């Protein structure tokens, strides 16, 4: 389906209706952006004057919080922000690579083949998503310890894969369902193997869905804090969300640093959203978060 709906239905709607739609959208945008503006105001305020205000404007504008967060070094003078940015990038990119690599062939099989145990596996997989993670973190900790991957970035990738793989499986199975089988059958008539048809026909057709699935896996790892804080120990392995949390200590929270860090963490995700916005809309639905 092409996204060019623009030509099909020329509206005869009155100008009033158009204005109402804009009013509605503007109201929604205000709702969506207002709390974020507070975070931004906090990040750029040198000090916060606590008083009730309706407008999220910074007080005593300064970049101090950003300078402090980015310039943070540890006791031995190592530049922590760069290391933790690297950890975050490594873990998030690897999580999406691992999730896609494991899930894609299996999702394709779930979509194209009938086999014994298929229904049962899909149902069990869905069931695992209903189990609150609180019960699994201790066994996962012992598991990673047993294979020597505690306090390593690879270990954290495995932990994130536990939620990214099932999600990717559902997402991609839906995407393959939406691709007509006939294309691959035609390729196979022309002499391609099943694998060849998968690589040369199905994968390219599923590209938007693959991009979005990868983005989701990336995002979930990029923003996650609780598991990272449990499974990582050495400061140079920390991901950025842990750095963020370290500004909220026992008696006190440096919310300015916290907000500045939050903005720094969000920028890459926002950039990805912007770049991938068309895929976001088509990739998500051609798959459908199909249960």
């Amino acid at each position: 389906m092409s996204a060019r709906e623009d030509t099909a239905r020329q509206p005869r709607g009155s100008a009033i209706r158009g204005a109402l739609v804009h009013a509605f959208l503007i109201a929604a945008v205000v709702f969506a952006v207002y709390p974020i503006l507070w975070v931004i105001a906090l990040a750029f305020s040198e000090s916060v004057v606590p008083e009730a205000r309706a407008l999220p404007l910074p007080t005593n504008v300064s970049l101090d919080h950003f300078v402090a967060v980015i310039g943070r070094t540890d006791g031995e003078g190592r530049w922590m922000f760069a290391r933790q940015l690297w950890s975050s990038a490594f873990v998030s990119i690897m999580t999406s690579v691992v999730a896609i690599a494991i899930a894609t062939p299996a999702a394709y099989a779930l979509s194209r083949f009938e086999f014994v145990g298929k229904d049962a596996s899909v149902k069990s997989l869905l069931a695992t998503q209903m189990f609150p993670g609180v019960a699994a973190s201790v066994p996962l900790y012992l598991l990673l310890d047993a294979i020597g991957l505690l306090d390593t970035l690879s270990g954290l990738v495995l932990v994130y894969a536990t939620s990214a793989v099932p999600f990717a499986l559902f997402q991609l199975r839906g995407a393959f369902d939406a691709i007509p089988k006939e294309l691959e059958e035609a390729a196979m008539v022309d002499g391609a193997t099943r694998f060849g048809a998968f690589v040369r026909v199905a994968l390219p057709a599923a590209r938007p869905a693959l991009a979005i699935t990868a983005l989701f896996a990336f995002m979930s790892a990029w923003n996650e804090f609780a598991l990272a804080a449990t499974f990582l120990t050495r400061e140079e392995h920390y991901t950025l969300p842990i750095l963020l949390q370290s500004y909220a200590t026992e008696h006190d929270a440096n919310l300015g640093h916290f907000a500045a860090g939050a903005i720094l963490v969000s920028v890459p995700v926002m950039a990805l959203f912007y770049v991938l916005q068309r895929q976001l809309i088509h990739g998500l639905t051609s798959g459908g978060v199909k249960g």
Partner: protein
Amino acid sequence: MSLRARAILLVVLSSVCLALASTWTTSLGAAQDGRVSIFLWHAYGESEARGLEAAVDAFEANEARAGRDVHVEVTAIPFGAYASKLQAAIPVGNGPDVFVDAHDRVASYVEEHLVRGYGPLEPEQAADFEPTQLESLVYGSDLWGVPLSAKGLVLYVNLDLAAARSLETLEDFEALRDELPEGSFPIAWELDSTYASAAMFHAYGAQHIDAHGGFALDDAASAAALARMRVLVSDETVPSESSGDLVRNLFRSGRAVAAVSGPWLAPDLPPELRYEVRPLPRLRRDDGTEAALQPFATIESVFLASHDSEAGEGTSEDRHRMARELALFLAGPEGSRIRAIEGGHVVCSRSAWADPALADRTTLRAFRDAAAAAWPMPTHPHMSRVFGPVDRAIRKVLRGEMEPAAALAEASHRFADETRPPPDRRDPMWGIVVLSSVLVIAMLSLVRQLSRPEVREGLVRSMPAYAWVTHALLAVIVLVVFPLAVGAGTSFFAGQGSDLHYVGVANYVDILTARGGDLFATGSFWVVLAVTVLWTVVNVASHVGIGIALALALSRPVLKLKTAYRVLLILPWAVPSYVTALAWRGMFHRQLGAVNAILDVFGVEPISWFAHFATAFAANVATNVWLGFPFMMVVTLGALTSIPKDLYEAAEVDGASPWEQFRLITLPMLGPALLPAVAMGAVWTFNMFNVVFLVSAGEPDGSTEILVSEAYRWAFTRGHQTGYAAAYAVLIFGILLVTTRYLPGATGGAPRRGKAA
């Protein structure tokens, strides 16, 4: 954005990543012979960490001068994860060799076998500490930690605002109230926290816990203290719904004459602020006598971990010796002097204070004097369970919902409930019998299935498909199914460490019968379940409603600024939810929140959002709707594009109104595409722990908790009752599994989308 631009962006991003990677790998050092390396963990903030690190550097330098190659790796652990991380990491050798923590955890650490004893100190070492401070680290007959610093609350007084007034008693501060402008307070004080309000209870002669670990705040003296606190808040001497950050910001900005806070506030105060640190004021009791306000003293101590860290170097003997030497150095005169000078630690070592460099540090000395007069926090393991119930009682009273005596009686009841002994040991025989019969039956039915010829043929035919799925199947079993199964298994156990024992289904029985209490009281499983269902329904309905409305608006054929709207509307999705949830909590603050400020513009009286179930629930829902609508909007936008346009054209020819088009075409066509997303969204919302935990935190009085946040509380804040929390998780799992079977689109056999796609 053009393809070219995207390619450039990609190249730039990846080269940045590569550059970072190379600097990181080259800086990795290699192990050396004869070297001893040990790990030190702490949860200090930045400025205090500097003091600790400077002292560690001095220790390493001393050792190097003595010809020993010693390396201490210092790690700052985020405070929120500290305790649970120590508990998980030390027993498997992944923890530190030495760690810093508060003295009041000593009993728990000893009983969980996480720490090693020090053995006797040299007499001159012991003489360097206050006897009471050292005694607070003795448990049984052994010494388990040495004191580093003492922390207690003090009174910061803004000298410009206080001018020449005499501010000796709380009553002097109350008299100030009428002179101050709106929005300013005589004292910024986090009175609704158990820790910060302890001095009030002490002043009335009340104690939190008795020698046997029983709840002691249920006498008349405690009620009198709480009644006095209520007056302080209601006459606005102290702000309501306070927090550490609010105290700091009020004092920093000159909107509070004084602040009750700890040494951690001083480094954050601007240099131009003229202030003085004093002990807390005195208080005049109802009978006219005066009493000192004695806050809790926390003695930060250094502990030796019971297990060596696997990542350390050197023989176990060397490392034990080095760990003990490091600990005694940090607590001793030289280490203390460095920590005090470089990090502003209020050190316990007496001789360190003789150093001339500390002579003119008046603020630091004031902290020390206040800490010496404070009340060491009781070390009984049950002390940590006092905080939750008492916090709740104080908040209820300060909000005027309950009388002090009744609220404290309720806290006492709750404390007893949370410290109840674990269920009795049961013979695991029946459990084993049931488990093995289930396994045997499963095996038998599997074998019977396999012996059927059509199944075997099916298997043979399935072989090519298995080649595609085996690796994923293995990954899911090892990483997902196995940990969940083990987790579910722990729901049949209670206790911790060596005390772990099988209790059968006792955890489930306790949960479902509300531990013998009222089945329909706040916090019982059934009430929380009802709240959770309401939470899920309201949220999902709002997500879908708002999502569809926005998607329809955005898919209008001629809409200006379409891309801008779309990008702005998905922003809530991009910012980490724990950050925005905290921002929302701030927006709902009664006195300082933006929501009340907006309502004020329309002439609405300020609302105490977290004081009532309905408003607190609404605050949670607003946050979660905000977080979740972009997803539904994007799904709907995509689904709309797959509706064939000719349907609308035909409808228009037939003269259907826009509303009829929506009802007869759009909705039926959207349905199948949205149902799976709705079902998934419902499961996510049911288990959405972040929002409830961070926005309302269960307030008021735990009534807005949902099942999963309740499970987290049992697992992490109510004494690590892992088995009990696991039973909650299994119940949640069961409820969702049963419910989704009867919801269309949620199960594995979801209705496939029409082949029209």
